[in-house]
């Protein structure tokens, strides 16, 4: 008998309360998606060469999972409370009929269990499909056929989803059941809307709005103009100010809406205008804090989604290899490697093979007092020229000795960065033999250097120098050209005057970033042999996949094949794949987490709004009966209801859009996100905006439909239209 009742009640709550059930399903789906990340194609692919980073990511995902669990707990609690409030009369009746409270709570838990099982089934199904879709989309976007697809179903993820979801569902039910346990039957039977409409004083409300607006303004100002002060700590201040501002603003606004109702005399006699406005006001004023919180959640979600989307945009830059020339770098005995590269199975994958010879310069063999080796290089003239080229405030700092150390960043003037790099490297600079560098230049179709015997070139690694257009460093080249013209030497090595060749093309020396060189001297081969410190000498064979092969098969496939052959050879090697993988990893990890949180926040905000609206609807449903007794038509009431839903969703959305826009603007100007690929930008922005609007619209429509359904369900006298 009771099992039947439990089953029927569970079924009824699902049918009658789609939003409640949908919330549970969404919770399950989002758990599953975060937990099944490890089975995504792109992650499996990356695991092959970035396994440490992936493991770290997956550990981080566990934190995200716990966080999501925590947030969704409140959502599930809220949804269950709404659901139980709806049924409080029924519970009162059970108790009146003599059911023991323990039994009632047990029955609730049993109902919850049935609903949970079904929510789990639905949620895992939906989550699985979504994860599969994401997996396919990402591998298509990234892999161009190289990332193989496999079904992303993960048993572990399912198990943890079930555990996590049941945990929060039962915690929520236990808390709420406990509350029922201590309520009197009368409270359950005649649960009324006990809040009296508190409209406050007009003056106080205006003060609230003004104060709220001022705090919001302050938060915007901090975000826009003081973004990075105090190591970003001010951002937290901005977040706090913005949140308090939003709450105050909503509180004042909700109550002032009544003023609008009494001001528009003309409109007040148009149908249910006043009623609609008052309903809306009640909804906002009585729950201004949660409306404000949804607004804040939507703001965060807009910012997060924009951030995640911009990360996706950089996928396009993944294949963008301005600086790196080579696909593979092989270490080891140069002769053996050279022979291996020309063997039959390998040779078809090799083009522009080039032996890079490098090493550090010898020192004088004597140590200075502080233990630093005494350098053969004297670059004081160059240093002086560079210092003179600094903008005024920096120049003073350098000349007065106030600036002890340099940092290298894209915001610094060119000369400052150069000073920094040279100061760091020039005691025993890296040397690259001219012939090696010529090989590199040849591969990219540039002229060889043909250095004179007293001539060198300065090389700066584009991978490590965060400067735009390394090829055309105007300050340095200006100084060097002037010196060449005047026949002056700015640098001497081992007391021999040296001319520096201006304007040479800079490219990545090897396939991967593992050779960490900021700067080097490119020197004629005889000078290289003479100056190089034999202990630091190293040689790398670099080559790239033939252009023709790339054109036919794409870069990835031959690269993977060549990788497999090299692996079997036993030589240590680095490939551009690692670099690619690392970049891909940052993009995937960044965008996935951020977008996930963004959509999670959005869904939570929408659910809270929806449940709140329906709670009010349920508590004040009798008003619609009165309205119809006064002659209101069903159509009029439905229209009023739709307007209420629309405003309820638009109000927090509106403020969130303003705050979100400010946030995005700040992120753009402080280069947290950057939009490089303009052609791709607008479609993507449009697509994500559509997704957000679509989600909100789904919730809006669902709420409006449930609300109309509620109207239909009111105890209508038979003849009321």
């Amino acid at each position, binding site marked *: 008998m009771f099992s039947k009742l439990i089953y029927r009640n569970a079924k009824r709550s699902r049918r009658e309360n789609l939003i409640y059930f949908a919330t549970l399903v969404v919770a399950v789906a989002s758990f599953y998606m975060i937990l099944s990340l490890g089975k995504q194609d792109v992650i499996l692919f990356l695991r092959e060469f970035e396994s440490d980073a992936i493991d770290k990511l997956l550990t981080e995902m566990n934190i995200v999972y716990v966080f999501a669990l925590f947030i969704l707990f409140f959502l599930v609690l809220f949804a269950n409370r709404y659901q139980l409030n709806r049924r409080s009369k029924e519970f009162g009746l059970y108790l009146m009929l003599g059911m023991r409270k323990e039994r009632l709570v047990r029955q609730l838990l049993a109902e919850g269990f049935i609903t949970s099982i079904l929510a789990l089934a639905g949620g895992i199904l939906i989550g699985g499909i979504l994860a599969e879709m994401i997996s396919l989309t990402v591998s298509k976007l990234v892999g161009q056929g190289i990332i193989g697809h496999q079904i992303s179903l993960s048993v572990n993820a399912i198990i943890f989803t079930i555990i996590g979801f049941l945990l929060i569902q039962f915690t929520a039910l236990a808390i709420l059941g406990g509350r029922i346990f201590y309520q009197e039957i009368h409270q359950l039977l005649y649960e009324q809307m006990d809040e009296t409409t508190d409209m406050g004083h007009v003056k106080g409300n205006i003060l609230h709005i003004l104060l709220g607006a001022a705090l919001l303004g302050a938060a915007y100002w901090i975000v826009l103009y003081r973004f990075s002060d105090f190591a970003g700590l001010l951002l937290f201040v901005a977040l706090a100010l913005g949140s308090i501002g939003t709450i105050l603003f909503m509180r004042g606004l909700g109550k002032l809406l009544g003023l609008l109702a009494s001001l528009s005399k003309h409109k*007040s*006699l148009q*149908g249910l205008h006043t*009623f609609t406005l008052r309903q809306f006001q009640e909804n906002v004023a009585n729950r201004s804090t949660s409306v404000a919180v949804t607004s804040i959640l939507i703001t965060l979600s807009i910012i997060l989604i924009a951030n995640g989307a911009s990360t996706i945009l950089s996928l396009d830059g993944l294949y963008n290899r301005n600086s790196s020339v080579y696909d593979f770098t092989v270490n080891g005995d140069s002769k053996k490697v050279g022979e291996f590269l020309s063997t039959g199975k390998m040779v078809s994958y090799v083009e522009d093979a080039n032996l890079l010879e490098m090493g550090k310069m010898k020192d004088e063999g004597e140590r200075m007092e502080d233990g630093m080796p005494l350098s053969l290089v004297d670059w004081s003239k160059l240093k002086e020229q560079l210092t003179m080229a600094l903008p005024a405030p920096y120049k003073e700092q350098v000349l007065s000795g106030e600036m002890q150390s340099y940092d290298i960043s894209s915001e610094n003037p060119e000369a400052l960065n150069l000073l920094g790099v040279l100061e760091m490297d020039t005691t025993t600079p890296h040397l690259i033999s001219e012939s090696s560098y010529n090989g590199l230049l040849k591969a990219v179709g540039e002229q060889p250097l043909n250095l004179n015997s007293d001539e060198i070139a300065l090389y700066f690694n584009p991978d490590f120098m965060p400067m735009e257009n390394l090829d055309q460093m105007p300050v340095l080249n200006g100084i060097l050209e002037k010196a060449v013209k005047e026949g002056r030497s700015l640098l001497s090595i081992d007391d021999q005057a040296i001319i520096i060749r201006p304007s040479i093309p800079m490219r990545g020396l090897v396939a991967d970033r593992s050779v960490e060189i900021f700067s080097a001297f490119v020197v004629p081969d005889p000078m290289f042999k003479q100056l190089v410190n034999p202990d630091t000498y190293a040689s790398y064979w670099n080559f790239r996949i033939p252009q023709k092969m790339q054109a036919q098969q794409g870069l990835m496939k031959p690269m993977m094949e060549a990788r497999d052959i090299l692996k079997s050879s036993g030589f240590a090697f680095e490939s551009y794949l690692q670099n690619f993988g690392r970049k891909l990893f940052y993009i995937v990890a960044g965008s996935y987490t951020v977008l996930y949180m963004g959509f999670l926040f959005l869904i939570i905000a929408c659910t809270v709004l929806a449940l709140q609206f329906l709670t009010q609807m349920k508590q004040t449903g009798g008003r619609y009966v009165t309205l119809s*007794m006064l002659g209101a038509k069903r159509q009029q009431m439905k229209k009023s209801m739709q307007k209420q839903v629309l405003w309820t969703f638009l109000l927090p959305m509106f403020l969130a859009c303003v705050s979100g826009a400010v946030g995005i603007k700040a992120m753009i100007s402080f280069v947290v996100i950057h939009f490089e690929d303009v052609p791709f930008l607008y479609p993507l922005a449009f697509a994500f905006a559509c997704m957000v609007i679509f989600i909100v619209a789904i919730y809006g429509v669902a709420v409006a439909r449930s609300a109309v359904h509620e109207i239909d369900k009111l105890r209508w*006298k038979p*003849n009321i239209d």
Partner: protein
Amino acid sequence: MVRQGKLLEVQDLQKHYGKKNNLTKALNGVRFDILPGEFLGIMGPSGSGKTTLLNCIATIIKPTSGRVLLNGKNISAFDSRDLSEYRGSRIGYLFQDFELLDNLTGQENILLPLAIHGMNYTKARGKLEELAGYLEITEILNKFPAQMSGGQKQRVAAARCLISEPDIVLADEPTGALDTRSAKALMNKLEGINKDSGRTILMVSHDPNAASFCSRILFIQDGVIFHELRRKQEERRERFYERILKVLAQLGGGSANVL
């Protein structure tokens, strides 16, 4: 001051509930007329069918058979669209528990029927002031129902049902939720409205005190009218009240039925 012609005609009204074997005849052939300007009371014990009768006239339920004519129009045969036009404009309701919308101010509540029917505001302004003055609610027009006393709420509700100048006011136990003082004040006002502006009122009540304000009373039992009392010209209310009590004592067969 009685005008010619019948305002409301109730013709052989039947309302049955349930199926053949288990049929309840809530109304079993009720017929009566109301003349313009009358203040008619309907009294009867619980289950006598008086609320069913009022609901039939109020177009809230459809009768099984019989007709209700308002100004010669058969409103019991109206479809729902026409009924909406009647409710709140031609027919005003006064409920036992006021049914004010508690998120609207008194004034907004009062003007709501006009808004729903899209009526002219400037005309309503004068009417609102007049009604509010008469019902002594001018001070509380901008308050919310939660800030009003029961008597004030019911007077606001009265203003709401009178604002559209309906042909007839249907009152269902309007004093049921009021204390005796507020009840008396309300009935005085209703009587005044009936006498001064000739508004027709049909009131259902089981309170003989409230009923003594009426000009005529129909007693209903088991779905039929079994008695009628008319207040004589110049008859004092106390006297009429005693006559009502006497009839009530007879209800259900009087003392003969006891034992």
